């Protein structure tokens, strides 16, 4: 299984998406992240591990603590996956709209 596919499986889980959202604005320790969820601490750790393995999160040592933060580069890569496909449809529909607006006038 390739890495890219893993990434999409990673973001398919609602808890992991919530973790990414939480980390979008700040870096946090595993404990601080876990305190935001009702889920058991080991479960949150497992989610963090998966997100780190597929490079969506990065760990940073600060003194005795490990902070998690978002890997922006990887997040952009995911957005790009759908974007060309979306753009293509958007272009086509823009064309449809323009043609039909003219049609209305004539």
């Amino acid at each position: 299984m390739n890495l890219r596919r893993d990434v999409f499986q990673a973001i398919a889980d609602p808890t992991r998406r919530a973790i990414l959202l939480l980390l979008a604005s700040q870096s946090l320790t595993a404990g601080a992240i876990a305190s935001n969820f009702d889920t058991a601490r080991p479960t949150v750790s497992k989610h963090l591990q998966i997100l780190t393995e597929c490079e969506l999160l990065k760990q940073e040592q600060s003194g005795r603590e490990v902070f998690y933060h978002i890997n922006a580069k990887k997040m952009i890569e995911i957005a790009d996956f759908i974007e060309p496909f979306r753009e293509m449809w958007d272009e086509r529909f823009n064309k449809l709209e323009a043609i039909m607006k003219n049609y209305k006038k004539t």
Partner: protein
Amino acid sequence: MEKKTKINAEEGRQELTVIREFELPVDLLFKAYVESDIVEQWMGTKVLKLENKRHGGYQFETTDPKGNKHGFNGVIHEFVPNEKITRTFEMENSSFAVQLEFLEFESITEDTSKLNMHIIYRSVELRDQMIKMGFAPGINMAHNRLQDIVNKLK
């Protein structure tokens, strides 16, 4: 720039939806799917056949920049004017399996309307592959043009 077209493609599912709101009355939006000469203009394809009725069929043909011709066809299962089209879509001479498309047309106001296109693929893998390749139903791939757009975004 405002993103008018929304794609909803959840991971691990063999379907996706394309949603778009138009500054057009619903009957004009629907007309764009029904009249061959209009379809040809916005989809950039030649329409060989378009039978807008239950059990009718359609056949499109596009020519790529190298002059190669690509055929697309499908069968229409449901046809309700200004409301819905249910149809299959298949690329000829390709290993891609046929897909099922549910097109729903909805009036928002007198001058605006919405299209909801629900596409179901044979497998999750096929859906992901179609997204990656930038293929979409009934169209010329227009890769160069697409690439230009993508480049502008970066």
